[in-house]
């Protein structure tokens, strides 16, 4: 669909030029300002085709290359997306290494924050690319495997990586370098390619076989102009967020400043591979329908309907043809004009089952939890995966997650020794606002937050109901990260550069429902904690002051007070007045899981409580060590080649990894894998009538 829009944009340029000359105002007054007349013939001579590559050379902002900082991010994003997509499609747990280096200019290496030229190398352990395809994949726009099918994946149009290559070519003149190897027995191929922007065809500069230390995978190297800056919407942030939504991937990031960050694998099962589906009739526009009529391989209209769309059975196809007064046996190519339109309208008014949802691969509640737990230090985590829903015939799933609070070990770091406070000094009440992290098909969205449906839904929710402060029209306040993910075969972005999700009613509603559930659980947690804490604080206050009062009494009495006795007596009164040992229980000091809080993790001083075993299993220190061994294991499995083997390997490991001593919550000890089966059950029940009705209702209102 994007191609369509792009080509529209390209052709629009030509009439624009043609119309500019015969301006009616100019024609009326030829005398004052002699206008140079251009004949249609002359104009015709100037009119020629514009290649997609040329168009994007001039309009690179459409693809996210507007400024050097964003361009660098876009390059990383495209390369990593490709790597993850490739690994997942091949059923390999992804291991991706990103290396950003400063390229010296005239022999001078600038510091990372001032450098203007970078070398980006992204290496994956994916299936590799066959030799013949390498040049076209990396140096031809709109070439790829993902566009012509309806299936959830990160990339869609086959523009991304070649556009990044083109940007490199444009800014530094350096070709894209690729190493790829399809298996340990195959040879590694090295390529240097550029794009012929006029023809949108690859130019191969170098092609040879080399020795490569990796048994399998692909490595892309780009040299681009860019700007490296940390903070909001940076490469660092993007990778961090990517690792939250892709806890099954292991990311290693070598920053331009020479640091190495590792985002460990926290979840050891591949996301289920999404199926390809046919388009749903509700999601097709009339023009598209006409085109499909021309292109179909079927010989009859009824056959065309039944085979080129999902959820249309042959009998339903016959019925619809009859209703539209079209002969079912007619050749599809012969169906034109008003007859085609009648048929199209009939289809749109027929009740058709919602599309299947096995084309989607949501992250899953447990995986989101492990991702959030791994990357964000908090006290409370929760995640919700909604059942699939439909907009414009496209199935989608909304997932939301929450991480709340500051983990106490962070606060107590000896950053500030406890200094007595002087007059006028106060504890800083930070009024930090919640952070929203947004994803579409597991890819973080960093720009245009306020245009995004997810952001609008977050703003629209009354967080006050859940015990979180929120001023009018603002984000909720508090140490909180809100995670929203939309998985769909076709995510409706507001622009080509894929930065914000369009605000369809159906999508907005689903996001709101998911957030509401997260909020409800958070509210429950906060209330429970608050109740216990206020009792605790009461006693704490008394304990704090008892000492002072006893000392003052002692001094008043001239030092003749049995201090210990008086203190004990007062402490006894305090305890009896503040709920005694019960408070300790409520405070969770004696254990007790997150009852009534499904798919949540609660972190307290004494440990982690959750039904999700990953939480207790990968504590901050153990995690990296554990992942090392697992990574090794996976490599063997992947080397063996069969993805199913790698899965079982991972799971064995996981079971071993669960330390029996750590308290997992009452009852279910399903571990990580329970989550997905749950989700799948839901997906199978899928597409309830209500979703369908919603789709109908929507069309009703637009018609």
């Amino acid at each position: 669909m994007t191609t369509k829009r792009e080509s529209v944009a390209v052709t629009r340029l030509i009439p624009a030029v043609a119309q500019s000359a015969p301006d009616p105002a100019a024609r009326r007054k030829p005398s004052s300002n002699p206008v140079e007349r251009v004949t249609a013939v002359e104009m015709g001579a100037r009119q020629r085709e514009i290649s997609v590559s040329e168009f994007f050379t001039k309009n690179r902002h459409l693809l996210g290359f507007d400024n050097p900082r964003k361009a660098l991010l876009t390059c990383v994003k495209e390369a990593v997306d490709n790597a993850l997509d490739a690994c997942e499609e091949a059923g390999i747990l992804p291991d991706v290494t990103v290396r950003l280096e400063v390229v010296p200019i005239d022999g001078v290496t600038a510091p990372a924050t001032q450098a203007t030229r970078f070398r980006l190398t992204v290496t994956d352990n994916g299936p590799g690319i066959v030799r013949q395809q390498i040049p076209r994949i990396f140096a031809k726009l709109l070439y790829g495997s993902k566009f012509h099918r309806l299936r959830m994946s990160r990339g869609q149009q086959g523009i991304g990586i070649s556009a990044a290559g083109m940007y490199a070519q444009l800014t530094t003149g350096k070709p894209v370098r690729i190493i790829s190897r399809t298996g340990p027995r195959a040879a590694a191929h090295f390529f240097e390619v550029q794009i012929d922007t006029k023809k949108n065809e690859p130019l191969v500069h170098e092609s040879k076989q080399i020795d490569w230390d990796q048994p399998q995978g692909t490595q892309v190297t780009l040299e681009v102009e860019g700007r490296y800056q940390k903070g909001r919407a940076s490469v660092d942030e993007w990778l961090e967020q990517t690792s939250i939504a892709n806890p099954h991937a292991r990311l290693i990031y070598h920053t331009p400043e020479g640091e190495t960050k590792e985002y460990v694998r926290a979840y050891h099962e591949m996301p289920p591979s999404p199926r390809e589906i046919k388009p749903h009739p509700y999601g097709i526009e009339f023009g598209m329908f006409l085109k499909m009529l021309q292109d179909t391989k079927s010989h009859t209209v009824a056959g065309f309907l039944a085979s080129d769309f999902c959820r249309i059975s042959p009998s339903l196809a016959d019925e619809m043809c009859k209703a539209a007064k079209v002969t079912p046996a007619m050749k599809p190519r012969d169906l034109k004009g008003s007859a085609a339109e009648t048929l199209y309208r009939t289809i749109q008014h027929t009740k058709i089952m919602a599309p299947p949802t096995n084309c989607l691969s949501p992250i899953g509640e447990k995986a989101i939890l492990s991702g959030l737990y791994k990357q964000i230090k908090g006290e409370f985590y929760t995640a919700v995966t909604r059942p699939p829903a439909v907009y414009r015939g496209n199935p989608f799933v909304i997932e939301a997650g929450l991480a709340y609070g500051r983990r106490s070990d962070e606060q107590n770091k000896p950053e500030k020794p406890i200094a007595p406070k002087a007059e006028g000094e106060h504890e800083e009440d930070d009024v930090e606002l919640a952070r929203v992290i947004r994803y579409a098909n597991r890819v973080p969205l960093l720009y245009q937050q306020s245009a995004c449906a997810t952001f609008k839904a977050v703003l629209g929710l009354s967080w006050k109901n859940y015990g979180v402060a929120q001023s009018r029209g603002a984000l909720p306040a508090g140490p909180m990260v809100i995670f929203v993910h939309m998985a769909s075969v076709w995510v409706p972005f507001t622009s080509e550069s894929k930065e914000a999700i369009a605000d369809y009613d159906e999508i907005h509603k689903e996001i709101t429902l998911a957030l509401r559930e997260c909020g409800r659980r958070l509210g429950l947690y906060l209330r429970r904690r608050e109740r216990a804490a206020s009792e605790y604080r009461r006693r704490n206050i008394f304990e704090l002051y008892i000492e002072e009062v006893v000392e003052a009494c002692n001094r008043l009495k001239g030092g003749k007070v049995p201090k210990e006795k008086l203190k004990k007596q007062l402490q006894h009164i305090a305890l009896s007045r503040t709920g005694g040992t019960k408070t300790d229980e409520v405070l969770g000091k004696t254990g007790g899981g997150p009852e009534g809080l499904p798919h949540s993790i609660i972190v307290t001083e004494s440990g982690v409580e959750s039904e999700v075993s990953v939480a207790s299993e990968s504590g901050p220190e153990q995690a990296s060590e554990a992942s090392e061994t697992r990574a090794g294991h996976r490599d063997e499995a992947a080397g063996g080649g069969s993805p199913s083997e790698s899965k079982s390997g991972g799971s064995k490991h996981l079971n071993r990894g669960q330390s029996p001593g750590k308290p997992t919550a009452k009852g279910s000890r399903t571990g990580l894998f329970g989550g997905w089966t749950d989700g799948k059950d839901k997906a199978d029940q899928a597409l309830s009538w209500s979703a369908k009705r919603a789709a109908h209702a929507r069309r009703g209102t637009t018609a």
Partner: protein
Amino acid sequence: MTTKAKKPTPVEKKLVGLADLVIQAAERSKDPTLQIPIRALSNVSFNERKGMIEMGEKKQARSFFNVGMAKKFMQTMLVADALAELQRAELTTSLREIYYRTKHTIKDSHENTFDTQDESDPIIEDLEVSLAALREELHVRAENAGSIVGPVVFGDDGDRVDCSKLGKGGYSVPSIVEPEYLEIRRCTADFVLLVEKGTQWNRLSEDKFWRRYNCILLTGNGQPPRGVRRLARRLHEEWRLPIYVLVDNDPWGYYIYSVVKQGSINLAFESQRMAIPKAKFIGLSSADPERYGLPRNVGIKLNDKDMARAKELMNYQWFKKPAWQAEIKRMLTSGLKYELDALANKDFQYLTKQYLPRKLRERDWLD
């Protein structure tokens, strides 16, 4: 003033009593509770016969084991301790020093016993009220915020202070003027003029108004501090001098007069020793601008706060006299207030040479 093994003063005994209260409550597993008389309008009454404000019987409980009061309770004990220390050491101190003396960070916490002086000041007043001890008796002094000049001789720490020989600066009134600390040796004045503002007091002092009219000039620089009020009361009581109060013509001026005359709401328990029911209001009255031909343009428009305060005053029982109701109403209808300084509009020495002589001659004052 004896040495070493001296007997505890009555005040010290009262302070130690607080510690006993805590110890006894703890013995009986009871919540230690102090009873503190309420210092608010709701707990004062105007005694018409005596002509002063008296404190009522209402008390407020301050318990230790109550989240809202625990900190105040603890602070009260700390202040009591510091005050007892002063008693034993026979020292006097300021409010601010008490604050610093009792301030520390509580063990194992980030919390300070006191964060600002605003927390410790009311506690000292609480103790004054609940122990029925005067601030002087607690050995807490305020700043010397008053001046006096005129034919009066004091004995201060053995020094003879003749206030008629101190130039135009006069003598700075100490905050504790009890007979033990300040002795009035001789006084030949006919009356006392208590002036609200230091600037106008300076004008009168510079013009030697006191010599011409044989009076004592006293000022408290705004709301007169206890020392000034107490000294005026002593001159009134011991030397039978009438007291005239000269303030700005605004609600705050009226209130200053009423505090001198009937005592304040906040420190109603001290009225006994401070109030001067026979004090007279000499000016500026709201009738003066017309009578003395002050142009309207030297007035200041009453703001909302002024109006609200004026209406509040009209409701106080001690302002219910018809003359006072008329006085305040007149100000409200004119919508203007006048400063004493505005008299300078007519002449720099108008206050000394015209205004006050005429007032005294015409016996033009309010009671």
